[in-house]
């Protein structure tokens, strides 16, 4: 049965209410939490991803010194090289927030520039990881070589997959913007993509310290 919307008048007992100006354009309909459900859902997803990476990091740490034969972390890692990758990913977080600031100002052209820069930096990071993986492979470290290889490639491989998905997401936002479908009032879409991208960055902050920098 179809229902028709009937305006409900709320009596408060006070003087008749003065005309109220319509609020600013709301980015989301009214929700029980008062927050946009899409943003809340992204935070819930990131919370679950914390547990996922927490498990992978824990597994790496408990098996770190348990390999029966090499190659071992000390003789494998090239910390100066990985430091550059860490800088690249950190810098991409900065360009990501600059993209968000641009769309919130209504500067769509600059948003596209920053989003594209972020995506390119993500590609540089992925290229660096690909080079690192192939170097390790040539040095004899494979996924099935020892406990270090299994846990290291699983952890960093899943992180790289996250970066790849993030690059794809950012490029799709740029494509939407070029087609004229992403404007200032849709800035939440950029903010949600940014949350994902920054999460990928904070996971790398932890991996860089716990896996690469902390000695055996």
């Amino acid at each position, binding site marked *: 049965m179809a229902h028709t919307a009937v305006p409900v008048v709320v009596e408060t007992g006070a003087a008749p209410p003065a005309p109220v100006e319509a609020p600013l354009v709301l980015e989301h309909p009214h929700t029980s939490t008062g927050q946009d459900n899409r943003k*809340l859902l992204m935070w*819930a997803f990131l919370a679950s991803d914390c547990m996922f990476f927490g498990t992978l990091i824990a597994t790496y740490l408990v098996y770190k010194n348990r390999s*029966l034969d090499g190659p071992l972390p000390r003789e494998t890692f090239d910390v100066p090289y990985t430091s550059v990758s860490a800088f690249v990913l950190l810098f991409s977080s900065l360009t990501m927030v600059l993209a968000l600031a641009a769309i919130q100002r209504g500067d769509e052209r600059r948003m596209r520039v920053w989003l594209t820069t972020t995506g390119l930096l993500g590609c540089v990071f992925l290229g660096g990881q690909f080079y690192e993986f192939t170097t390790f492979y040539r040095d004899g470290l494979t996924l099935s070589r020892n406990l270090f290889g299994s846990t290291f490639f699983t952890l960093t491989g899943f992180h790289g997959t996250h970066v790849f998905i993030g690059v794809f997401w950012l490029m799709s936002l740029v494509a939407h913007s070029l087609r004229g479908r992403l404007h200032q009032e849709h800035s939440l879409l950029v903010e949600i993509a940014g949350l994902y991208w920054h999460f990928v960055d*904070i996971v790398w902050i932890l991996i860089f310290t716990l896996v690469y920098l902390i000695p055996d």
Partner: protein
Amino acid sequence: MSTTEHHLEHEAGEHELEHAHPGAKTYVIIGLILAVITLAEVFFYTQESVRGILVPLLLVLSASKFVLVVGFYMHLRFDHPLFTGVFGFGLMVAGSIITALMFLFGQYPFPHRG
């Protein structure tokens, strides 16, 4: 105040709250701080003199970077506390998993390299 007025003010207030994000200048400053902390991490890693306190030092520096990114770039410092609660819960579970697994595996001897 009528319920309608109250509702509209509430919505407008939340809208303002959601947009009270820092500007580009703050983002660049935070970016510079993050770069300096990363440089410090790599510097301490190469110093033999701090070997004894290297692990806690690196953990503190890493945690500072984590807090800066989450607080400023992900806007948890400015957004509704609900988001902090949701993310904090996941983080707490992750921390518990790491602690519990390291404790459990520390209890059992593993075969060592001969």
